């Protein structure tokens, strides 16, 4: 700053005059902008859908005002840190405690893993750059092709069912009923229970021989040769894994939805009741739109978790029979730790996984942005 002051003093008279002129100009512009804002956009209650263009225009105006203000301040004080920069600093101070830990312990290794996709490395021998060789291998890897197909099938089957079940359960358990706490705990139970334990139980219930499910089907009159073999039957194995996943994780997303539901004001529902809205209308016009940030979060987490599915498959089918439930992360794990220690190739597979997730996330983000402009 001292440097700036010196510089200021050195300014010739002419320069000072120019500066003052510019400042006056800017001030005038600012005043004009402010007036426009007051006259054209003085209504706060803009509707996100109807007044889309107007909102955009308003944002543009605000940005311009900010910019002008910044230039004025810079000219006036000659300070390096604008108010904007200060604000950024405050924001960084909020983020720092988490980000530093996150960057060191997660981001850095992740970036390293990305670089590895173009390398050949077994964890010990020197790393070698191999260019795109790892990606070329993917096209010929039958297990990878099976895995990518299975993963997508798994996601398409699991995401909508889990979402619907979680939301339904949350709405149900948000009502004022007796023993609500207990019901909620029960709904959350499959998620908290140790995977090892519930998978064992699940496998025994769905055992093709004498499992409870098949015994019940027999009692319902299903012929013995028509009984599904569940996890040990190539036609039913994926279904078994999906059913297990939905059952296991719906409680988790139910909790997120329950918390989201608390954010909706009761007044909205009261007003709707006065207007004579029925339950379905209330859901469509109040609950669903109000839950948008929550749903955004749930869909992204759900999609990512589905693409990353590993534990459930490992516990229920071990990818079998054969490769009929082999999923991407299972294949990654085998490549890195079972069949070889090919970390480079494993990283390349995970890049594909990453690209898939990114695609879904970006689409979702677009959706959220439109909403957030309210």
């Amino acid at each position, binding site marked *: 700053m001292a440097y700036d002051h010196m510089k200021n003093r050195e300014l010739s008279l002419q320069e000072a005059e120019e500066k003052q002129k510019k400042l006056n100009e800017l001030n005038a512009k600012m005043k004009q902008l402010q007036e426009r804002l007051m006259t054209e956009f003085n209504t706060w209650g803009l509707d996100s859908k109807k007044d889309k263009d107007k909102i955009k225009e308003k944002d543009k105006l605000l940005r311009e005002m900010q910019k002008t203000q910044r230039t004025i301040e810079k000219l006036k004080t000659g300070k390096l840190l604008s108010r904007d920069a200060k604000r950024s600093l405050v924001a960084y101070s*909020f983020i720092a405690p988490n980000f*530093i830990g996150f960057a060191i312990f997660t981001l850095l290794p*992740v970036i390293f893993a990305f670089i590895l996709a173009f390398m050949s490395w077994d964890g010990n021998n020197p790393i070698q750059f191999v260019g795109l060789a790892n990606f070329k291998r993917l096209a010929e890897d039958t297990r990878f092709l099976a895995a990518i197909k299975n993963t997508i099938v798994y996601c398409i089957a699991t995401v909508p069912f889990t979402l619907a079940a979680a939301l339904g359960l949350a709405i149900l358990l948000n009502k004022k*009923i007796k023993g609500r706490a207990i019901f909620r705990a*029960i709904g*959350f139970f499959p998620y908290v229970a140790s995977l090892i334990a519930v998978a064992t139980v699940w496998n025994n219930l769905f055992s093709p021989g004498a499992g409870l499910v098949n015994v019940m089907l027999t009692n319902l009159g299903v012929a013995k040769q028509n009984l599904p073999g569940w996890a040990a039957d190539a036609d039913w194995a994926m279904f078994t894994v999906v059913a297990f996943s939905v*059952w296991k994780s719906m409680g988790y997303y139910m909790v997120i939805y329950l918390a989201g539901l608390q*954010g909706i004001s009761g007044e909205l529902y009261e007003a709707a009741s006065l207007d004579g809205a029925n339950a379905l209308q209330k859901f469509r016009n109040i609950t669903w739109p109000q839950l948008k940030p929550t749903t955004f979060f749930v869909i992204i987490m759900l999609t990512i978790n589905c693409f*990353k599915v590993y534990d459930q498959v490992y516990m229920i089918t071990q990818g079998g029979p054969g490769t009929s439930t082999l999923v991407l992360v299972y294949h990654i794990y085998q490549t890195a730790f079972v069949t070889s220690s090919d970390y480079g190739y494993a990283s390349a597979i995970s890049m594909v996984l990453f690209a898939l997730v990114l695609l879904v996330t970006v689409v979702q983000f677009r959706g959220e942005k439109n909403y957030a402009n309210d």
Partner: protein
Amino acid sequence: MLNKNSKRKLNKILLYVVLITITVVMLVPFLWMVSASLKFDKDVFTVPIKWIPENPKWNNYKVIWTKIPLMKFVLNTSKITLIVTVLQLLTSSFAAYAFAKLRFKSKNALFLGYIATIAVPWQVYMVPQFIMMRSIGLNDTHLAIICLQAFSAFGVFMMRQFYQGVPDSLCEAARIDGMSEYKIYTKIMLPLSKPALSTLTIFTFVATWNDFLGPSIYLTTESKKTLQIGLRMFIGQYSSEYGLIMAASVISLIPVLIVFLCLQKYFVEGVAATGIKG
């Protein structure tokens, strides 16, 4: 025509029927676990299932405490879980506030960075991460697990979504009153985010409590191991002793359920209770 009252009653009965059906579906595996934990191993798979064993083998619950150092494992896990949960709550709600309510440079890039890491399976960067942890001397320490779990992208993402739901006008008003951002965070946002915070607490607690692969890679000394490694070791060594395995599983479940029951009441006193319009 039904009058309003009986219609309401019918609705209520229907609701309970649905709830009880769901409950049964949810609870069958749990009942199976408890029932198996009281049986001799050879009786676990008998057909048809005997839900209530003739002579319950309560001894299973005694034996497991001596077969593995279960108490030590429970203490280790509790310590790690508590520290991780506290750190996670503090740092991620702090960071999430900035992501949701402040404008700053490269906000979107940073946030995408967070989400991007969620999408990468841990198995891929586990080895580089381990090498790094070891190089800074964290191998075989609880601190390694804490560092691994406490700064998760998930917490930031979740809290950001909840703060996003809080109307901006609240913060704007406070800013006009001359409140600093730190004050807005502590005085306005934190009290409002009770449901979100309790949700995050439960999730972090459950995730850390049930985490298995992380501790099994980092913790190699017996006295530092956690409950889930203990459970796995137990299953590995006594893979045919289902009664004991199920007893151990039931025990590992209890603390998590207690935490859930204690916190779930906050789900009803949230933003709505403070009377702010959504």
